[in-house]
């Protein structure tokens, strides 16, 4: 899923435009693996799969593989449809400097939900 995130996001001109003011490296955690996603002007320019040694990120969004799988269903069940729904269920963590994440929350949410398009196809 995450392997194809870059093309899913970068092919969506509208989404890239929404994130055009965001420049950040953030981590998506799936079980024990961190994927470092580097965003430049709203485009994903690189995704590095962990383990990482002394790599810095600005914020990290982590959940279990099972949680992400459910979240990425084409139509996820109630409680798995939004990262803040996962937060209320205590199934996800947000760490680090959350300011860029909150300032670009809609973009971050849409980016994280992008793999649903693969499930729908």
């Amino acid at each position, binding site marked *: 899923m995450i392997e194809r995130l870059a093309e899913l996001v970068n092919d969506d001109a509208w989404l890239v435009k929404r994130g055009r003011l965001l420049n950040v490296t953030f981590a998506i955690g799936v079980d024990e693996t961190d994927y470092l996603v580097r965003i430049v002007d709203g485009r994903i320019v690189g995704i590095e799969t962990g383990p990482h040694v002394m790599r810095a990120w600005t914020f990290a969004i982590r959940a279990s593989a099972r949680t992400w799988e459910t979240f990425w269903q084409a139509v996820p069940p*109630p*409680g798995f*449809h*939004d990262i*803040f*729904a996962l*937060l*209320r*269920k205590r199934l996800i963590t947000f760490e680090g400097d*959350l300011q860029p994440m*909150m*300032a670009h*929350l*809609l973009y971050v*949410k849409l980016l994280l939900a992008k793999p649903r398009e693969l499930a729908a196809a």
Partner: protein
Amino acid sequence: MTAAIEPIAGRYLHLALEGQPHRLYFEEAGQGIPLLCLHTAGADGRQFRALLNDPEITADYRVIAFDMPWHGKSSPPEGWQREDYQLTTERYTGMILAVADALELERPVAMGCSIGGRIVLNLAWAHPERFRALIGLQSAAYVERYYDAGWLNHPEAHKWETVWHYMQGGPGIFQGDLFFYQVEGDVRDRIRDIDTAKCPLYMLTGEYDYSASPADSEAAAALIPGAKLTIMKGLGHFPMSENPEGFRGYLLPVLEEIRSAG
């Protein structure tokens, strides 16, 4: 090509709230039993435009949706620039009764969503004699603070029109409404004493709502003898604006039951 004009009329109401003059915007359509609609935190009465445009509803109901002070087209009171806006149970309750009085609504039905669904529980507790029936959408007696409201920007609805409403909120207003929702307006102690024989209480909650979740509404309904709770399939926190068609399937039977009860 003929332009379509909706049957909704919008007007401004001047009234005193807490002794201060206010200019409140409201929209209405239809005639019959007054149905006073209460919007969600940080939003405004436009959320109810589908109801206001629904001939099946407006045939028997005078649907009224007002924008709370500081919201939508309603002005904040004079001197607002020196004030930190905060909604409280007392302020919210007084506002609803004042609007009902100013518009001379006789025993209206009040229907509120989210913070509106919360205040409806307080109306059922404190002023059942003033209402023909009460309808809480996404009602919960209390919601834990599962996120830090200091971050609040706008919530995460995916019906874009609802998102647009939220993008238009004034700074700090959503947060001020959440003071009521998350801090001050905890009605868990009160709702056990709600007498649904005095005023019927209906609760409609969308299954995708994770703020006032089905479990939260069920917990509230379990404490209120006679409360009628329905969980709405496929709907979320903003049923009337995110999916009006899905919502009316649940609302129409409730309105019909209220109407036929007389």
